[in-house]
């Protein structure tokens, strides 16, 4: 898919552990890992909202479009 998820980069920038973010956002570590690796088909606005809130970033910082 042309949409790339940059969650790992944002986590590194914010020096936050994956487990901590999963707990704060309210999703399982497995699901967060799936988001990180781009294995999900879709992401809810509520989940994106929570991730952006916890990482203090914009959706564009996490989602990136790359032409194939």
């Amino acid at each position, binding site marked *: 898919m042309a949409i790339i998820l940059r969650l790992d980069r944002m986590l590194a920038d914010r020096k936050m552990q994956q487990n901590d973010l999963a707990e704060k956002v309210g999703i399982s570590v497995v699901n967060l890992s799936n988001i990180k690796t781009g294995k999900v088909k*879709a*992401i809810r606005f509520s989940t994106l909202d929570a991730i952006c809130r916890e990482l203090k970033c914009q959706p564009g910082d996490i989602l990136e479009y790359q032409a194939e």
Partner: protein
Amino acid sequence: MRSEEYLQKYHGVTKFLRILAQISFWLVVVLGAASLALGVATLFMSSDSFTFNFLDNIRLSMDGVLQFDLSLANITATTKKEIITTILFALSSFAIIYGLIISQLTSFLKTVENGMPFASANVKRLNMIGILFIVGSFIINTVYGLVANKIIHALGISTLSVNLQSDANMLFMGIIIIILAGIFRYGSYLQDEYDATI
């Protein structure tokens, strides 16, 4: 009401139905295996073994509506053997069809009980049940016809004849179940989409 609450509400009913289906399945398996074994055994038995008279006066109904009081007292032991063998093989063929339907139904109910009614395997199961109903609508009536034909000829009843046609109710149910399988296919697709959305 949310879907989880719906599933919770019907969990008890589904569990009861699943247990009932499982018991029915084993009853059908035992009945089918016993009738098949007895049917094969009667093939190798001599006609002299069929001189018993407990079948001399029997009440038989093919359609569940009309009942016939038949007297088999005057027929020969060979004909009696043929009738019994046909009935036993008919029972085993019914058991195969109903056993397959009930086994698919049990697996289906198990997934509903586990809160996964739209599992992709259920589409195949429903399709299989629908096909079995359609095939069964022809086979069961044909087998009924064969048994009836055997009895009619054995008793020499000239005023009765066998009309072979499919069971319209079963055929209709089979078609409805296949349509439902199509709906479940879409449900399964939506479930996959939902599960893959975080």
